[in-house]
């Protein structure tokens, strides 16, 4: 008893220490960013972790900047549309791949995977020219499309894995109970695949929200420029001042929604939701 208790405590201790280390490693840059955003302009280069005087002037400044608020709106809108569209399309595609027998299922999955492997930077040039000639340059659609394209494979693979776990009998039972195929999908399959849907949604949202490459290359004005690209255009109050405080404040502002989204959804990502569906 004492032995196993000791081993258990030791194990817990090591796990705790390891987790703390990882969390610190991941969070120190974020903490530094928060600290920077709260410092006064003159203190930015003092190298102190805890600001000497706390001020919200940088936050006030970024929200006063119409360019930034427009970018925030663009980011939210584009990421939301890309997420909803990619998850919806991904759901139907994954469902078809898992449930329906049709030629080329394997090919479809492989093709989807190869799209995900494609380095985005290699298509930026052609996309820039293409978007300019078809009029998608500097529009929301011009960003939503590539975001969807690059995240759909991930969404399909994630959702397919979840759909595969759902016993087919449940759907057949729903059909016998009087549901149309769509009703069976909406009332039985989707609720059971909810953890998968949220996982896919988070992945797509993060990709769209954090993207810098497409945003900087395919936009030119605040019509469609998202926050990561907008931050790059920040200027100091004078030619000789680095806008570090404003950049830090803007970065904190764009990080917060992601954290909120993940925290909100992680409660929904609970495994074992399907337990009890069938025997066992």
């Amino acid at each position: 008893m004492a032995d196993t208790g000791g081993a258990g405590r030791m194990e817990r201790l090591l796990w705790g220490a390891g987790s703390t280390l990882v969390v610190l490693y991941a969070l120190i840059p974020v903490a530094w960013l928060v600290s920077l955003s709260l410092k006064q302009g003159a203190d930015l280069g003092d190298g102190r972790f805890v600001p000497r005087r706390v001020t919200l002037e940088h936050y006030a400044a970024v929200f006063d900047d119409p360019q930034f608020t427009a970018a925030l709106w663009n980011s939210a809108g584009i990421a939301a549309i890309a997420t909803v569209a990619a998850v919806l399309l991904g759901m139907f595609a994954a469902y078809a791949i898992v449930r329906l027998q049709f030629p080329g299922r394997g090919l479809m999955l492989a093709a989807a995977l190869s799209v995900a492997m494609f380095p985005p930077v290699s298509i930026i040039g052609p996309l820039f020219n293409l978007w300019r000639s078809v009029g998608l340059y500097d529009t929301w659609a011009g960003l939503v499309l590539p975001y969807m394209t690059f995240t759909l494979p991930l969404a399909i693979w994630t959702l397919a894995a979840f759909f595969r776990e759902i016993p087919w009998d449940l759907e057949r039972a729903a059909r016998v109970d009087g549901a149309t195929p769509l009703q069976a999908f909406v009332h039985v399959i989707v609720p059971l695949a909810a953890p998968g849907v949220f996982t896919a949604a988070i992945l797509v949202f993060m990709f769209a929200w954090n993207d810098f490459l497409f945003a900087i290359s395919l936009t030119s004005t605040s019509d469609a420029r998202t926050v990561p690209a907008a931050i790059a255009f920040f200027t100091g109050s004078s030619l000789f001042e680095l806008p570090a405080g404003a950049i830090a404040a803007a970065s904190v502002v764009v990080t917060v929604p992601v954290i909120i989204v993940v925290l909100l959804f992680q409660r929904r990502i609970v495994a074992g939701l399907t337990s009890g569906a069938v025997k066992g």
Partner: protein
Amino acid sequence: MAEIELREVTRRFPDTIAVNRASFTIQDGEFFILVGPSGCGKSTLLNMIVGLEQVSSGEIRVDGELVNDRDPRERNMAMVFQSYAIYPHMTVRENMAFPLKLAKLPPQEIERRVREAAATLELTPLLDRRPHALSGGQRQRVAMGRAIVREPSVFLLDEPLSNLDAKLRGQMRMEIARLQRRLGTTTLYVTHDQTEAMTLGDRIAVLRGGTIQQIGTPRELYERPANLFVAGFIGAPAMNFLPARREGGELVLPLGSLGLADESAVAIPPGGQLVAGFRPEHLQLAVGERRAGSLCFEAQVDLLEWLGPELFVHFEVGLAGFGGMALPRELGIETGDAARTMVVARIDPGCGVKEGEILALCIDPESVRLFDARSGENRAPLRE
């Protein structure tokens, strides 16, 4: 209430025929059983009737109306799945209300029916639980409840008891029988368990390899099996089979000879290869007077199975003299002059027999069924 009629119903897959020209009629209110070993096509047949699977050819009619191409939701049939298939994200109440909500019934009516079904199945205290908090037997009840709330015209049950333990299975079997009698709903029940088939069914259809072997009441199947397969499938322990041939007016078995009635002697060509089948309970201890025409023999007890009210005696029979006969492979009897096969007899447990002892047993000619060794068909009985 509904009468289901199948005409030459066939289901083809690219490389197999799952159901081959099944034709039968299930009467209104009848408890009809489809029984057969796994992979015999019984579930495919059930799925075609409920509309989850396409019919390749043939007709399925419900009350005279062709339903081949009807969507499952237009057939008004309720099904209980082997896996129960209750919705894990819904409470027991929501599970049972689901088909009623889809049918757009008024909420008070839904509530009334759910409460009624829950009371019938003793689920009332569990209504707000989720499936993962239920035992296997309770889940089974929920699946039944979801079927009965709809007041459908047909119940379809696909091996509903096969995931329960033996005791619960016996209990649920009785409950299903009682429920069906009370509701009087036409019921089609699929199982691989011959005990369930015998105890529940008004009539039974035995399937094998997609083809219906015989349809009849449990008694008909037990007493007059149409072929070797049905004879071996119905009854536990299974019927005993021994090679046999006709010599003059006698039927020769490895155990000895039986007298043949005149009309049987005509029906059976001499030298024809036959299989004689007899049930374990038809072997009787030879006590007192021998009945005329019966075959008596001595056997050494190899193994005893004592079950309380009954005692099964297993003994070996040598097949010397039947070496040249080819028996259907599924019987699992090797032929050859040195070959032996096992025979089981059910005798009075009070007789005090021990393993290794010599036992004298008799069998009456009326109890012996004769089958054609090649086709497996039942031949004329020795004597009626």
